[in-house]
């Protein structure tokens, strides 16, 4: 099934490709390279082959004139209960940079009900133009009316680049829109830049639980779509003197055409938005039981942070899944991550390894968490965490 072609007459058996394959799909058999089903056609091996013995099938190329009709950078502005998500402003900031590089305009898409204030904010955060779709049917996010509105706008105005936040709603929406438009979508990007030679958007994202990074392009389809992770790009400074064009657009679906209805929204006491949190205090197996989260919560409260948890504690039923950080939980990127009694399995590191400052508190000095931490205390979390809480209480009250 592997798509990689190996010219066995050219192959010298040097093994350079075997060493660079991120997927372990290549091996030397009788001193000749062989590929197996683990090959993902990523092309990492092509350039290292000194005799050009490796190749991938040619891809069709699109007519360049068709693509040139697509211009401008768009950002979808997510809102919940009339308040814009901070990730949307982060993306307007990055969208501004990309638009300036491409010498084009930045457009924000604001959908909701009674959200004119968000349209105005979008201009302050860098949009030159805002498509503002205001209707009771759009008050709460639903895939169908949101996706259909955006699809119609894209078909009419043809943007070159379209960015959405990699939030639950953003990922729900982007997948639907890109499928309908038949264009490429890269999920969960942590890097976006323009290739100065081809002018293509280079979209970099972690894969395989953060163990590898991949840079992805979409050369033959438009728009180039990406969802972007929380807190990857700097929050821009709002400039309320900026001028921009706000264009009111009619929704494309009426309420009776929409199959879904949001009937309720449950926010639990102490529920935390891990994705947005600047500070997260997390507990692992070392907390010992549900009551072991008490000192963790107290420290989080003093710091104004959120409570995270390792998979082991969630699986044991000590804390709800919504708190889980890591590969099968949430990926977070706070300014400060304090890991208490967390050993630091690969899956946990995948979810928090890009935090700005990491603190590890663990009894075991050999725990892998210390290898990614900036600061550490080897000790019993039940002594260290309350002591830290006391210190911050004193120092922050001053």
């Amino acid at each position: 099934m592997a798509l990689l072609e190996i010219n066995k007459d050219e192959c010298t058996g040097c093994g350079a490709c075997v060493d660079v394959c991120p997927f372990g799909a290549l091996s030397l058999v009788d001193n000749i390279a062989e590929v197996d089903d683990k090959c993902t056609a990523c092309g990492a091996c092509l350039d290292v082959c000194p005799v050009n013995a490796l190749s991938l099938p040619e891809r069709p190329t699109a007519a360049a004139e068709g693509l040139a009709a697509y211009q401008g950078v768009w950002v979808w502005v997510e809102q919940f209960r009339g308040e814009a998500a901070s990730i949307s402003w982060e993306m307007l900031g990055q969208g501004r940079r990309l638009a300036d590089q491409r010498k084009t305009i930045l457009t924000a898409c604001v959908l909701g009900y009674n959200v004119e204030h968000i349209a105005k904010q979008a201009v302050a955060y860098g949009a030159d133009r805002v498509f503002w779709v205001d209707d009771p049917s759009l008050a709460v996010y639903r895939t169908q009316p949101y996706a259909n509105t955006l699809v119609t706008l894209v078909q009419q105005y043809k943007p070159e680049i379209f960015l959405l936040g990699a939030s639950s709603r953003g990922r729900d929406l982007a997948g639907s829109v890109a499928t309908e438009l038949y264009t490429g979508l890269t999920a969960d990007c942590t890097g976006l830049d323009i290739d100065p030679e081809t002018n293509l958007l280079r979209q970099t994202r972690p894969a395989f639980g953060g163990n590898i990074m991949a840079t992805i392009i979409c050369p033959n389809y438009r728009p180039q779509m990406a969802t972007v992770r929380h807190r990857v790009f700097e929050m821009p400074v709002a400039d309320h003197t900026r001028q921009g064009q706000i264009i009111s657009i009619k929704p494309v679906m009426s309420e009776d055409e929409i199959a879904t209805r949001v009937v309720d929204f449950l926010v639990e006491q102490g529920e935390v938005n891990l994705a947005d949190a600047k500070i997260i205090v997390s507990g692992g197996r070392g907390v010992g039981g549900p009551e072991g989260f008490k000192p963790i919560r107290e420290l989080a409260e003093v710091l104004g942070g959120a409570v995270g948890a390792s998979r082991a504690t969630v699986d044991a039923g000590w804390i709800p899944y919504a708190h889980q950080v890591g590969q099968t939980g949430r990926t977070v990127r706070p300014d400060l991550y304090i890991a208490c009694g967390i050993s630091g399995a690969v899956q946990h590191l995948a979810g928090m390894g890009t935090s700005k400052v990491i603190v590890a508190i663990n009894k075991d000095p050999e725990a892998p968490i210390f290898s990614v931490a900036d600061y550490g205390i080897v000790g019993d979390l039940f002594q260290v965490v309350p002591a830290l809480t006391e210190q911050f209480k004193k120092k922050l009250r001053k």
Partner: protein
Amino acid sequence: MNIIVCIKQVPDTTEVKINPETGTLIREGVPSIINPFDTYAIEEGLRLKEQFGGKVTVISMGPPQAMEALKEAVAMGADEAILLSDKAFAGSDTWATAYTLSQAIKKCGGFDIILCGKQAIDGDTGQVGPGIARQLGISQLTYVFKIRKLDSESRAIVVERLLEEGREVVETTLPAVLTVVKDINQPRYPTFLGIRRATKMQIPVWGAADLPETDSNKFGLKGSPTQVVRVFNPPKREGKVDLIQANSVDEAAAILADKLLAEKVI
């Protein structure tokens, strides 16, 4: 109730080790498993069948070895399984994967509910579920945490979705695609009888020519809008851990608190 579960075979990342010298992944000897989120989808499918009757069909696209994942799903209790395997499908991105799976689902005939895991742990995109819903033109309910109510007569379904701010309760009408998160259930283990059944079962393998719409330009590498141009190791965190030593816990805590305040992250 016709229930379809889409699953993916993935390398077990809990077994992945990093080569300390080169910093690359060691994938030798890494076992393949059913994507963990998909096991919740299978379990939810089996529970719906137990409640409403009908059958559970599992579909996977992948190399021939993905058959093992399907056999495991059958051992858990799935009634039927289909493997989509063809050189024409190789190199598929999420668009082409959703297209191919939705073609297979159409060929299966009637369906009431399609279940997927919220994302696969190797690609982590979460895009295939919404892609299938769009291709089939039916509702999508992503990040489902609980099926609250399902009325087989009126075909109304009410679910709770796990979002950043809390849980959203949404109602729609079947057919629909549901992508599920981990907390929805506790997947069962395969039974002895199930394993015997799975061993004997002849699972059909469908290629591009077996699907209803055989536009080869939409399959595999050819049909995939995105291209990977570079794969590299993530930058390592720089520097070493500053292990705080002190005579007492309080002193250590005080030193750490000062250092964190100096970092200006609080």
